[in-house]
């Protein structure tokens, strides 16, 4: 049976999830979650991306990230 999900929260944010497997490695983006607050985003990130043995995991609201440039955009001189 096909199921359609509907957002139950009125105000949700996208949180980008960053992690690394070993201390010498840099943090890298491994995915994102959608949640109304950082607490729930942390619980979702841990539940969704816990398949690897990460030594560190962080979440950042996507809106807090400033894009300098992106694919398809001209690099600022």
């Amino acid at each position, binding site marked *: 049976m096909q199921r359609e999900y509907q957002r139950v929260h009125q105000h949700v944010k996208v949180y980008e999830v960053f992690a690394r497997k070993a201390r010498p490695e840099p943090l890298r983006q491994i995915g994102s979650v959608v949640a109304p607050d950082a607490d729930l985003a942390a619980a979702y990130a841990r*539940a969704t991306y816990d398949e690897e043995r990460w030594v560190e995991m962080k979440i950042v609201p996507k809106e807090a990230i400033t894009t300098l440039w992106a694919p398809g955009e001209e690099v600022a001189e």
Partner: protein
Amino acid sequence: MSIGELVLSLADNKQLLGLRYAEWATRAPSLEADIAAAAMGLDDIGHSRVLLGCLEPLGEDPRAADRENDAGAYLNLPYLDQPWTTWGHFVAANAVLDTAFTAMIQACVEGNLEVLQSRLRKMLMEERYHFLHGRSWLREGIAPEPLEVAWREAVEWFGPPDGEVARLHQEGQLAAGPAELLHRVEERLEMKAPSFEPDWGAWDPRRRRSRPGAIDARTFGMLRGLEERKFMPSGASRGA
């Protein structure tokens, strides 16, 4: 009641909590909540296994032989007897009961029994995410009925002020007694338990509940491995 019986109560409650969480892994209000329900279910079933593994080092195994045939021999709370009918039931259990079990685990870790200090510590890290999940959904608001029932059962599960949990606290096996345990849950959830006086006369000190009843037949069958046998090819046997 011995510390072993209390650990068995924790193990049975966590096993049933894990199974009830898992039942919502395709019914929660969002895909993220589905995944969280599945992950928390796996956590709690795993915690139950670890807790059962502590029984032998603690002394006599308190599991009665009738657990194979009598669903009422399990030490779970009434809240976990039947599948939950609403998301509000999930949230109330996640926020109140799971946090109450975690408060007891913390009291074990901070107590004077080495086996519990060492084996249960990791659970506290995993439970942090159960707590964040439960508290955040609780803040969204749920119907008052499941929340009140969850609080009442948590208070009853901690036991009377002069009961065995209080004695285990006095002996140092637990780092907190019933009043302190309740206070810790209230503090974490930033809310007060509803005021009520449990009927300790009707309370079963072994099952830590006052309401009679037992796990539903299907879940009990699953615990005994009967459900999975339905999917075995005919003629196959366990261990074959």
